């Protein structure tokens, strides 16, 4: 695997063309055979359906993520090229930005969501997880998506941000629009954007300083404007990043972990025998299910990647989920193993754009799985799980379960 600035005289036609549509319902229903096809076709492929390059092997996904100068984000991390099309919303100052602009905004969010801050919120997040388990033990039978994977982050994250109680029902629908909008102009994207106005209005309003409670993440971001780290007009847009990417992602992450542990009772038992595995059980679920399936980059110059020449201004689709199960990188990639050494998976991305909220996600996952495993002996799936379809996010819409108290 090489990234080179001096392209060899490779024949562009040597890049295999595939007819796979990675944003199609049948693909979403079972992406794994297609992921394998994409990986095996070559290190770089071309998807005729949307006229984009694709990388699905670990080495190339990792290489693209770690070369932000060649594979930029400022032209959008979805299919839409911001140089050619007007973005559906004002671009993100962090996700859809390149250095040096990105470096400044990234530093602000890193500070607001640092390991030191996690230590301060940990007890609060753990207590909320215990309360959630109390409620679930009362019910015994419930929907593990609505009543657990959604209910838990909703019970802590909006408060941690400092949001008002009113209007929070817009949060998950707004995130759903954001992640659908990274996809191609298919029905999912068109409909999501068409219905987005009320959610956008809510989010724009809540990002304003006056609407954010003191001490929360949102207020901390605005306080960075006082320090001169960002301008007062940038602060609301950075708050928006947490509203866009901080909730639905952890809903799908926790949902993935519960779905894994319910499907693989041997791993559930291992976790119950050793609660210190909770954090890695969550991490492995992020690798195994990859709640964020894909992101795009745009080439800033002609580049050679693993023997393929890609011209300037081309969109490159990174299959994070396929990289996370690439047998070239992982032993038994298709098994969920809570003792696996997960370091290096790209479920949170890699490099300068790696999920800035990863510590919040891990904290939520760890304390939730710890509380569940300590007090619940068994989780049984009692009905057909229903999938929720989104152009970027992979997760369930419902997962009926019955639990047995420990």
């Amino acid at each position: 695997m090489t990234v080179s600035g001096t392209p060899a005289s490779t024949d562009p036609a040597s890049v295999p063309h595939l007819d796979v549509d990675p944003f199609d319902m049948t693909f979403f229903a079972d992406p794994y055979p297609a992921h394998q096809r994409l990986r095996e076709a070559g290190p770089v492929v071309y998807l005729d359906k949307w006229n984009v390059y694709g990388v699905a092997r670990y080495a190339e996904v990792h290489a693209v993520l770690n070369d932000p100068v060649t594979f930029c984000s400022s032209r959008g991390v979805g299919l839409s090229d911001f140089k050619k099309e007007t973005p559906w919303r004002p671009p993100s100052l962090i996700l859809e930005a390149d250095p040096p602009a990105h470096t400044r905004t990234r530093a602000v969010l890193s500070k607001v969501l640092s390991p030191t801050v996690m230590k301060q919120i940990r007890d609060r997040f753990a207590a909320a997880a215990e309360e959630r388990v109390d409620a679930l033990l009362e019910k015994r039978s419930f929907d593990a998506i609505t009543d657990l994977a959604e209910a838990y982050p909703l019970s802590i994250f909006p408060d941690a941000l400092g949001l008002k109680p009113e209007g929070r029902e817009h949060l998950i629908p707004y995130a759903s629009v954001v992640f659908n909008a990274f996809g191609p102009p298919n029905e999912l994207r068109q409909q999501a954007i068409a219905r987005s106005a009320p959610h956008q209005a809510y989010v724009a309003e809540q990002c304003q300083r006056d609407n954010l409670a003191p001490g929360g993440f949102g207020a901390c971001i605005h306080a960075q404007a006082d320090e001169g780290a960002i301008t007062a007009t940038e602060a609301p847009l950075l708050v928006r990043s947490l509203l866009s990417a901080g909730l639905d992602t952890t809903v799908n992450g926790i949902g993935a972990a519960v779905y894994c542990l319910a499907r693989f009772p041997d791993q559930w038992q291992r976790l119950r025998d050793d609660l210190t595995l909770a954090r890695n059980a969550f991490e492995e679920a992020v690798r195994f299910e990859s709640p964020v399936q894909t992101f795009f980059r745009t080439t800033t110059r002609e580049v050679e990647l693993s023997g393929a020449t890609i011209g300037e201004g081309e969109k490159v689709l990174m299959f994070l989920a396929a990289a996370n199960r690439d047998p070239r990188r992982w032993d038994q990639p298709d098994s969920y193993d809570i003792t696996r050494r997960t370091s290096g998976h790209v479920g949170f991305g890699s490099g300068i754009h790696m999920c800035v909220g990863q510590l919040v996600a891990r904290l939520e996952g760890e304390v939730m799985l710890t509380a569940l495993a300590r007090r619940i002996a068994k989780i049984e799936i009692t009905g057909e799980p229903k999938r929720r379809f989104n152009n970027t996010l992979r997760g369930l819409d419902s997962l009926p379960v019955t639990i047995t108290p420990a």
Partner: protein
Amino acid sequence: MPAITFIHPDGKSERVETSGGESVMQAATRHGLDGILAECGGNAMCATCHVYVDESWLARLAAMAGDEDALLDGTAAERRPNSRLSCQIDITPELDGLVVRLPERQV
């Protein structure tokens, strides 16, 4: 190739042969060493590859950047004057024989 000695909290030591162009964290995880978690994969975001560098080696390491310094304030085990993130220590031939101690915990 340079070798690094990791000393576990229980006093047990482990010698790891490194390959060229990797960090102390990468050498540790490649050898499956317990005690280095490296959740963020070496992107300087998580502080779970914390080590205490043997005092005699400390001055020979490249100075730490501001982001590493900030992350070290959030380590799970106590921060000491010789605390470093092992993902930020690139192994050079001069570091052959480097000794680092592992903290009690990383999270």
